[in-house]
């Protein structure tokens, strides 16, 4: 109860100091509430947790099931909000609690799992090689296209700007994907920094901090 009062007092202080911030957050809260009403009651397959702040437009398309946890927020990043596209009925997208999603696009045809407290910039998560995978099989193509494979991302991961995660990525918790890097079929352990296009090396963050003199 004490925590609640402290939070409320803090919010009032901030709103007096910076009224524009207060107005923006209020509009984002109301917008998010409208999104919750629209998606939870008018579409069967999408579920969004209650406090949902939408600073930027949210677009969820497709027959697959999507669930977003409590206390998530969507920010505007390079003129993009959150877009989730599911291409088949079996597709599942699970996003955890307290995520800050800015400019993220997810194209799912099998399964994408994202943990709690994940922070993203404009990045692409795509678990199949080609988006129109089912349509492509209708024309005669004699070559092996890799099949879609599920992606899992741990807690407290930071996806930085321009990164692309393709099929079969397993990313451990507390790790960072650097800007412009590109993952394919890669497993990255906990608390590692992934660099490169394509990613070939992952560096332990503890070692990097020790080298730079930050402990």
């Amino acid at each position, binding site marked *: 109860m004490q925590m609640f009062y402290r939070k409320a007092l803090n919010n009032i202080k901030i709103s007096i100091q910076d009224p524009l911030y207060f107005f923006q957050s209020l509009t984002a809260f109301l917008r998010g509430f409208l999104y919750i009403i629209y998606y939870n009651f008018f579409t069967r397959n999408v579920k969004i947790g209650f406090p949902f702040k939408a600073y930027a437009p949210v677009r969820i398309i497709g027959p697959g099931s999507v669930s977003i946890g409590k206390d998530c927020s969507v920010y505007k990043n390079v003129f993009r909000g959150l877009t989730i596209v599911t291409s088949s009925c079996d597709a599942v997208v699970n996003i955890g609690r307290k995520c800050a999603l800015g400019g993220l696009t997810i194209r799912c045809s099998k399964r994408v799992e994202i943990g709690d407290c994940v922070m993203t910039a404009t990045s692409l998560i795509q678990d199949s090689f080609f988006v129109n995978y089912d349509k492509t099989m209708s024309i*005669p193509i004699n070559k092996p296209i890799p099949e879609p494979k599920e992606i899992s991302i741990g807690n407290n991961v930071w996806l930085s700007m321009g990164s692309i995660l393709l099929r079969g990525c397993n990313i451990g918790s507390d790790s960072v994907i650097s800007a412009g890097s590109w993952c394919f079929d890669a497993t990255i352990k906990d608390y590692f920094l992934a660099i490169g296009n394509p990613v070939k090396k992952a560096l332990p963050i503890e070692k990097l901090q020790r080298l730079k003199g930050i402990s």
Partner: protein
Amino acid sequence: MRDVIAGIRGRLFILMCKFFRRNIKIKEGLKIYKRLSIGGKGMVSIGSNCIVDGIRGDSIQHVTIDAYSPEAVITIGNNAQLYAARIAAKFQVTIGNNVLIEESGITDTDFHSIDRSRGNPVDENRDKCQINIGNSVSIGARSLITKGVAIGDNAVIAPGSIVTTSVKPGSLVFGNPARTIMQGQSVSE
């Protein structure tokens, strides 16, 4: 219903090209789901049974084909599927049959020189800069193909890759710059 409207739009586009724009030649069976814009004075020819569409949920969904100079030639084969593709040519771009292109750019030139003047590039000619893409090639989303590249038949180009050197037939290519790597690569520490 959607397919019928797309077929009608395709037929209207072909009729419009017959009367007003003689430099564009399109065979039968074109389906236009999203906007198709063809610009420039160069020759553009598209084969039969092609599909023009965009990727769902994206903000940019139209296909653009630009032939900048009057001697530019763009040819696209039969059964091509263009999903939000951007093709620009100053000299020559040839694309084979049964090709899939998803939200990626194919450009023939650099458009400007590296001098301070930023004028026309000097050392570019048709033999050096033309792009050849073979039959049944598929190109993933957010990838880019630069000048002077030849891609062999049945090649697969992964999403997000930038192709600067020519690709052998039947190979899987990705990264920046694009190279062949075996599947199931392991990340070292």
